[in-house]
């Protein structure tokens, strides 16, 4: 008996339909997405691979914190927190497909703690359109605070009420560096190295705003593309040196910042160097030193506690306990060596849990966003991991949770940061 083509086709048809039906099993859910009787599912995208993979420990830390809450408090309102993380490799186009999957297939309650300015910008339109919270983004882009209530600037592309950041924003940080340069460098000749996308441009705009009439003191600018070979930074720094600058401002992600510092060391050149705080992790500085950097005197800023210089603070002891309980040796070693991104992850996750609690026993996406826009982690309700005295606060008129900084300088003898001065309000 021979099978003719029609029958073959029909057979294939049945098979395909069968697969399709099977794959739709469990697709539709009732009620608020991600909220089940005993669990609440959130999701986030992180650079576990790619040019920004040095930030991966933030994701591990956030997951560790949620695990700690699940274990010691049974989760939030009796629901264990399930955190689905996806690797977008710091590649905005991958973030788009990852977020689509998290929202449409995994039905997450909210996107929490995702890392990356460009990834965030690639997905904020979609998330706001579908009214999914894009909460506590792990980037300091100013748009996350500016665009919440209304489309204040054209880059907002419409109001983004479902998006909120967490850390002190980049332009505010850059303004502080401008202030520092003007008060510490008599005849400043500034060279800036920055990433060519919105991340870097955000910083640069803040620096220029902070310099005001001294804008012309920036005599050289070098931009690099994220994803390019870090060894190419050598050429950029050489060009800054050749331009005759006496101050270098670095607005880069870690791999490139490390290369920049290593190049300065290799050239035996020590201009006043300002470094953006997301690349100022002690681990990165140690790596830079191992590659020939001589970063004594480099100035940066911080807003979280340091496990190496402030180990006795209750927050740092809690952090150590949480990290040790993960039994992940690589993570524990990183923590002990001063990987501050772990503390960052804990701090941000603590705010997420705080907001989830205040979203009520039957949380909705709207109640979660409301809680995020009325944060009040002050006084006795302080976030245990942020710098002593700093607050995490938002209100109906103020969309930036953290607005305080402390400047710090790298000490070549202790191989660690030393903060100085008082807590600065970098606010808007």
């Amino acid at each position, binding site marked *: 008996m021979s099978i003719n083509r029609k029958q073959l086709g029909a057979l294939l048809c049945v098979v395909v339909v069968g697969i399709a039906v099977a794959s739709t099993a469990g697709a539709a859910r009732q009620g608020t997405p991600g909220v089940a009787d005993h669990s609440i599912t959130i999701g986030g995208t992180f650079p*576990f691979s*790619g*040019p920004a993979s*040095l930030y991966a420990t933030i994701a591990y830390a956030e997951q560790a914190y949620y695990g700690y809450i699940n274990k010691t408090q049974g989760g939030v309102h009796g629901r264990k927190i399930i955190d689905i993380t996806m690797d977008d490799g710091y590649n905005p186009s991958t973030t788009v497909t990852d977020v689509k999957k998290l929202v449409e297939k995994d039905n997450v309650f909210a996107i929490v703690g995702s890392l990356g300015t460009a990834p965030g910008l690639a997905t904020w339109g979609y998330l706001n359109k579908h009214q999914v919270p894009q909460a506590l983004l792990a980037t300091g882009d100013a748009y996350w605070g500016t665009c919440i209530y209304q489309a204040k600037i054209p880059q907002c592309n419409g109001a983004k009420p479902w998006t909120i950041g967490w850390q002190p924003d980049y332009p505010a940080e850059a303004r502080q560096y401008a202030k520092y340069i003007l008060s510490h460098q008599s005849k400043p000749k500034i060279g800036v190295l920055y990433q060519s996308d919105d991340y870097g441009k955000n910083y640069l705009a803040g620096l220029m705003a902070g310099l005001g009439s001294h804008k012309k003191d920036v005599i050289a600018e070098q931009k690099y593309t994220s994803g*390019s070979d*870090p060894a*190419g930074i050598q*050429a950029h720094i050489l060009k800054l040196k050749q331009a005759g600058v006496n101050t270098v401002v670095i607005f880069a992600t870690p*791999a490139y910042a490390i290369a920049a510092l290593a190049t300065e060391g290799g050239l035996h050149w020590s201009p006043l160097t300002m470094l953006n705080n997301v690349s100022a992790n002690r681990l990165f500085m140690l790596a830079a030193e191992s*590659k020939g950097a001589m970063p004594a005197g480099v100035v940066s800023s911080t807003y979280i506690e340091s496990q190496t210089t402030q180990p006795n603070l209750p927050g740092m002891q809690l952090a150590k306990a949480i990290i040790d309980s993960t039994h992940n040796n690589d993570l524990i070693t990183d923590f002990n060596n001063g990987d501050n991104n772990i503390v960052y992850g804990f701090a941000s996750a603590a705010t997420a849990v705080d907001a989830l609690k205040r979203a009520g026993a039957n949380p909705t996406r709207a109640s979660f966003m409301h809680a995020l826009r009325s944060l009040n982690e002050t006084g006795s309700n302080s976030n245990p991991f942020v710098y002593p005295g700093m607050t995490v606060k938002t209100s109906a008129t103020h969309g930036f949770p953290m607005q305080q900084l402390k400047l710090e300088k790298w000490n070549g003898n202790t191989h660690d940061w030393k903060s100085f001065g008082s807590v600065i309000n970098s606010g808007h």
Partner: protein
Amino acid sequence: MERLKAADLGQIVTGAFLLAGAIFLLVGCLESSNFATYTVQGVGVGMTYGSLALALVLIYQATHVINFAQGELAMLTTFIAYQFTKWGLSYWEAFSVTLAIAFVLGTVLQVTVIRPVQHRSVIATVIVTVGLFLVIDGVVNWIWGGQFQTLPLAFGFSSWDVGGVFIEKYYVGMVVVVLVSLTAVWALFRFTKLGLAMRAAALRPAAASLAGVRVDVMLAIGWGLAAVLGAVAGLMTQASPLSSLDPAFMQPVLVYAFAAAALGGLESPAGAVVGGVAIGTFLTLLVGYVPQISSDLQLPLAFAVILVVLLIKPSGLLGRRQVERV
């Protein structure tokens, strides 16, 4: 006498051009300290490109296949070296062990994955190497991804101050190590029976087989050697303190190696190495001296080079034109 006229004229012109280029570099180094710094850097990274390019050419000469996984294989062996240093071996101990492992890895891959498809379809073989690319990339990311890691520096990070010119020790080290490995491979091909057998197997497989050469074994050994050259390229790329030990680090190098191989001709080993150095110095000098060109443009420039060279001389600078007799 006839043969000397046509094809070799092209070779002579190219040779003269290269000689002129070398003289230009030398004079430039003596004139300007910046030029010298750039040249040293260019030759250093150029040698690593040349090493990988040679690996590509070795495989292409033997099997007419472009191995897309060559860069990832080099990257894998570099991570293996990193793992050995974590387990307590010194850098050079890890280096040696890794070269041995690379050889084995190369031969095993040829035997298990390439040999079955080699004769059936060119496109299938190419796709297999692409599949290998994906597998190796995934495996490395799985085992070592997301962690912060650095390979101990082979030559440290300091530089010599030669009359105001900074000559980084690691660039010199790269050149030396690559030269040594290239010389070893050349000597193998030129002076040993094994080398002779391998050359025969690549150029005239039918005749070689009649003469008693195990052609398939020779091909496997060829892949092993190519993997060793790739490992050298990977390890030397990491000898620069500015490189980060990230699973994607060999991808741009593969691109430059392709450019070098295209420039020098896919059938010419010497061409591959010379092509690598040429591309390395050309790009470094260009980025250094032309302000509009940032180092991010290096990749597309390398491509522009490939395209232009292939348009003018479709078989590469030192390659011979394929003439088909009907």
